[in-house]
């Protein structure tokens, strides 16, 4: 057999520069239109400025929040960076716990029927309780303390990770198990050699959903259970009737959530390189 396979591997066509510019423009049309309509609506006086500040006013308030001098006279001025770090740290800590526990327990549940019998009922029961219902419990149990926020985030984002991982592990093709066995893999090593890699696409789906939930929960926790953070700023802005700051906080969370989701999907694209061309990843 002729054996020149070197050229045929990269069949995905790279977009040309004009195509990329055109795509970028298309992507900006809808957000741009929303901003324009919003600005015009406020400028024309169709809604009173007290119920909806203009985008320009939001940017202005945001600027003070980000870069203003730290002063006891304005609670928010210059605190954005600190609050951002606080929220990020909580999400990172909670999500790390959720990811480690969710993947570990999920693989075991998906692979060992006994583990499924042990955990499946409890997990499905707890999953049916909306995470916000745990807030009062967390505050009582942990007090107004970091651990309350980290608990809520870890606990809440654990479920999508564990459920997706278990489903992925359960669907490991039997033929791949057999292939590994006849190539010399002992029964105990199957979990690491076959089940875990076979479950990776499902694991990443779970991680993405879990991370999204982590951002929801950090805001809830910061509004109700801990001091500092973007959710805390959001709630303070509400109490001071600062709609401009509320919108600035919402946008901040949106940007962060989007960025962290991109990070996970980029990691997935790298780890799941072997799937390229098989799925829309």
């Amino acid at each position, binding site marked *: 057999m002729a054996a020149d396979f070197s050229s045929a591997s990269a069949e995905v066509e790279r977009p040309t520069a004009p195509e990329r510019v055109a795509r970028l423009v298309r992507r900006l049309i809808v957000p741009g239109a929303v901003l324009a309509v919003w600005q015009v609506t406020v400028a024309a006086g169709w809604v009173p400025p007290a119920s909806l500040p203009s985008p320009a006013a939001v940017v202005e308030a945001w600027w003070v929040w980000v870069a203003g001098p730290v002063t006891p006279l304005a609670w928010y001025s210059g605190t954005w960076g600190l609050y951002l770090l606080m929220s990020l740290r909580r999400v990172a800590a909670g999500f790390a716990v959720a990811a480690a526990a969710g993947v570990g327990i999920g693989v075991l549940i998906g692979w060992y029927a006994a583990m499924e019998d042990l955990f499946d009922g409890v997990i499905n029961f707890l999953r049916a309780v909306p995470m916000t219902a745990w807030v009062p419990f967390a505050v009582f149990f942990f007090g107004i303390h970091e651990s309350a926020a980290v608990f809520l985030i870890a606990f809440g984002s654990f479920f999508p990770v564990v459920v997706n991982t278990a489903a992925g592990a359960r669907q490991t093709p039997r033929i791949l198990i057999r292939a590994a066995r006849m*190539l010399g893999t002992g029964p105990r090593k199957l979990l690491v050699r*076959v089940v875990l890699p076979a479950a990776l696409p499902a694991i990443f789906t779970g991680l993405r959903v879990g991370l999204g939930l982590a951002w929801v929960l950090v805001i809830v926790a910061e509004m109700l259970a801990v001091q500092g953070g973007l959710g805390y700023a959001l709630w303070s802005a509400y109490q001071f009737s600062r709609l401009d700051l509320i919108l600035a906080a919402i946008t901040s969370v949106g940007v962060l959530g989007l960025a962290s989701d991109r990070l996970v999907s980029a990691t997935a694209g790298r780890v799941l390189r072997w*799937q390229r061309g098989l799925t829309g990843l």
Partner: protein
Amino acid sequence: MARDTLIACRRLCKSYHDIQQGERVVALDDLTLEIPRGEFVTVIGPSGCGKTTLLNIVAGFERPDSGEILVENQPIQEPGADRGVVFQEYALFPWLTLRQNVEYGPRERGVPPAEAREIVERTLRLVSLQGAENRYPHELSGGMRQRAALARVLVNDPKILLMDEPFAAVDAQTRAALQREVAQLWAETGKTVLFITHSVEEAVLLGDRVVTMTTRPGRIKADVAVSLTRPRDPTSPAFNDYRRAIEQLLMDASAAPT
């Protein structure tokens, strides 16, 4: 030439519960088969005759309900690298590149890396896959995947090759090429091969013996020694005599199930 028995199946019985039909299906009924070392045995029969069950039992994937299955006089307890299996569906690990798939066995068996690299290289050359090592299975053609699956077991230097309709999913030209290569590999390496097929031509082309099976219950209908010189010419009159005889046996097997 007196050769020692490598695989001995004695009075194997195996039945399943068929979920769709809600009844017990006897896949193997009192099946006895001995395969001497170095022999190429093809097994042919109508679908559902239990030929894959037979292979799965020799592979150690399934246990017989009763009967004995011995390799070198030792009962088979579980799958092992001494019995390499080539599946119709390839069953390559999709998350590993071609090279990593071939390296998998030596790594699992703890072969030192330098030695492993050498045998992997040699095996890739043997199946003409050099140049495609860094591609993932889904980037390979069907023929290349099946070569990779073959390389993945050959690299373990198994005593026995178990092939379960390995070429049923590839196009006719690729199939012919793969058949030639397998015949040549077998001649060079002297492996003992149990080869399941549903193609009479393939069975006669490759087998020292063609074992035909009946369906439900799965039994051996006939065991035909093929005394044609290799390489075999499928268009020769002698080849077609075998072909006709075996097709007749198969027709009888499906017409009058006992």
